[in-house]
């Protein structure tokens, strides 16, 4: 023991395979830890996971019988996670921490509601109505995100806290309108229902042509998500601007020397990030609830953050992770207590970022003299003093 030492060394390159293995392995480990926590909290983990899977994706018997309710519900839940996740992903790419997607989602929903109920007449053609609502939602979410964006770009104010604080302000804003406020319907804590011209088309609306669609509530919002994912991929990997974003994220100093305008990029990225969250809000009120309610989102904006990270900030991979979390929400709906979905998401995020380090560093077992260990430090988990100094990364 005295002459063996475990060292952490950076890997020269990270293979795609290693990073996929780390993600999947991390997910497995997270499910194990989650099971242990569930057991400790007095629940039966296997039954809980089984219920989640059955509820979220259905059983082969269901599929054979042409019943896809579980899958459809999962898509419904995944839609806002996907859209908010794509929004924060763009920010994270340039290390801009927009934690306020939840509030931006609410502001988007608020603006879309305003258009549907109070601005456009009931008999507005559906395409015009929905397009206007989507644009208003994106504008509201984008402007809401632009507040912390401007503070960051011009005054250097930490955007993590400001985006988060504005979530709570947005919650109060919605409450003001909906709970006994000007938009409240006869004292209930919700707005009147939208006219049908403001409902996003759902699969079940086409049941007269495809009978299997009957009862499926997946709506057009998911297609918004697909289009946004494609657009984001194009921006990030096929445009000069996307290249700038990635350079700023990797090395802001170098970006500044290269003449890239940091402030302008922060403002633009924050606006788009918020706009996508706002679109998520619009798609939620127009596609699912058809009215504005107090606290209608169970934290989609936060799940989006975790989905983005689990997807390694890849706009295609986030399709998978948001479906995963959507399924988790659908499944956990049947479980008590309701915090299980959030808890599992937290564990997953932890384990995945931990596992990610193993793809960037490797453990090397080497012969060496004893290294003093300290409080809480795994023995010898240090680079030995004899190592040649390596050049810093930042």
């Amino acid at each position, binding site marked *: 023991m005295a002459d063996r030492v475990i060292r952490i060394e950076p890997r020269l390159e990270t293979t795609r395979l290693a990073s996929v293995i780390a993600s999947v392995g991390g997910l497995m480990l997270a499910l194990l830890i989650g099971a242990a926590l569930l057991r400790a909290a007095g629940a039966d983990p296997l039954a809980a996971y089984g219920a989640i899977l059955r509820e979220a994706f259905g059983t082969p018997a269901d599929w054979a019988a042409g019943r896809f309710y579980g899958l459809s519900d999962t898509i419904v839940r995944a839609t806002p996670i996907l859209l908010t996740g794509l929004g924060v992903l763009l920010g994270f790419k340039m290390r801009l921490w927009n934690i306020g997607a939840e509030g931006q989602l609410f502001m988007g929903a608020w603006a879309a509601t305003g258009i549907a109920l109070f601005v456009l007449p009931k008999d507005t053609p559906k395409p015009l109505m929905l397009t206007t609502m989507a644009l208003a939602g994106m504008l509201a979410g984008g402007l809401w995100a632009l507040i912390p964006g401007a503070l960051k770009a011009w005054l250097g104010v930490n955007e993590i806290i*400001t985006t988060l*604080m504005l979530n*709570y302000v947005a919650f109060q804003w919605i409450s003001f309108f909906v709970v006994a406020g000007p938009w409240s319907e006869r004292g209930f804590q919700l707005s009147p229902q939208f006219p049908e011209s403001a409902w996003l088309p759902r699969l079940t609306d086409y049941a007269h042509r495809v009978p299997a669609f009957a009862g499926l509530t997946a709506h057009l919002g998911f297609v918004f998500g697909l289009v946004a994912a494609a657009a984001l991929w194009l921006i990030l990997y096929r445009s000069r601007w996307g290249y700038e974003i990635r350079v700023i994220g990797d090395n802001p100093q170098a970006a500044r020397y290269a003449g890239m305008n940091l402030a302008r990029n922060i403002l633009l990225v924050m606006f788009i990030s918020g706009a996508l969250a706002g679109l998520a809000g619009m798609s939620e009120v127009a596609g699912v609830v058809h009215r504005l309610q107090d606290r209608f989102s169970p934290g989609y904006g936060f799940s989006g953050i975790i989905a983005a990270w689990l997807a390694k900030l890849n706009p295609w991979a986030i399709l998978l992770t948001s479906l995963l979390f959507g399924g988790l929400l659908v499944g956990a709906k049947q479980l008590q207590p309701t915090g299980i979905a959030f*808890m599992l998401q*937290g564990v997953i995020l932890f384990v995945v*970022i931990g596992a*990610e380090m193993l793809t960037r560093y490797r453990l090397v077992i080497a012969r060496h003299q004893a290294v003093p260990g300290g409080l809480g430090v795994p023995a010898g988990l240090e*680079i030995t003093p004899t190592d040649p*100094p390596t050049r810093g990364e930042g």
Partner: protein
Amino acid sequence: MDLLQFLINILAAGIATGTPILFAMLGEILAERSGVLNLGVEGMMLMGAVSAFGVSHATGNVGLALLAGMLAAGALSLVHAFVAISLRADQVVSGLALTFLGTGLSAVIGAPLVIVREAVARIPALPIPMLSSIPVIGPILFQQNLVVYLGFILVPLLWFLIHHTRPGLHLRAVGEYPAAADALGINIIALRYLYVFLGGLLAGLGGGALSIAIDPGWLEGKTAGQGWIAVGLVIFAAWDPIRGAFGAYLFGVLRRLPLDLQNPLVPLISTANNPTLGRFLDMLPYLFTIVVLIIGSREALRKRLGAPAALGVPYVRGEK
């Protein structure tokens, strides 16, 4: 009720309301001074709150309850310490994960506690003899809950620790210039673990102070962003406990304002006849945090008193 009485009431209530945030903020100051950003304060506070409330409900022993709250949050902070310090993962993401974990876990643990309606043992208020009868100052400062006095003691204590003791010097060295501290033989990894853990204990104390002293009870998401506000106040505090205490108490006053103004007996500015105004007053604490952040950031720029230089940077011997 005259205006003076109203002011006394709101200041006293504000100081009490600001106390849980004060504890959490002091803990975050310690962690950040050592160079580790922990954004998991909200999750740790929630775990502290639910654990303290649960233990108080089960045993009726408030001392044990507060300890349980501190240890639960402390345990959570060690997860962050391991991922951020030993595995050198991104501290922002790890802290976020901690908040999600704490929020979810506290909801799972606390589900059976939400329906608890009977009285649960709580930390009592204790007017201090003599001092509490001083006019104006007495009712504001010395007719408070025990945890409030604990806050009065902790603030100067931590200020002294940070600025005037050898351990405080080591703490600052580890956060400002870890390579030099390392050369002096200071065990950086161990100190960072220690201060992140202390930060967790204090966040747990804040959560416990909330759920069994200041605002007794448990609800899912009980802290409503107070952990995040604590993180924001650290910047306003410029990492100094005394400055931070003013921020925390001022925040407490703003948080109480909507409640106290509903009293129709309040002169001039009662909102009893204007409930919609109350909704906007509810936004004040959060807007206040943003304003305070702007002030803190501007000042940091001007006076060049900023974050500990190594904040958020994992230490690797030999790397700059």
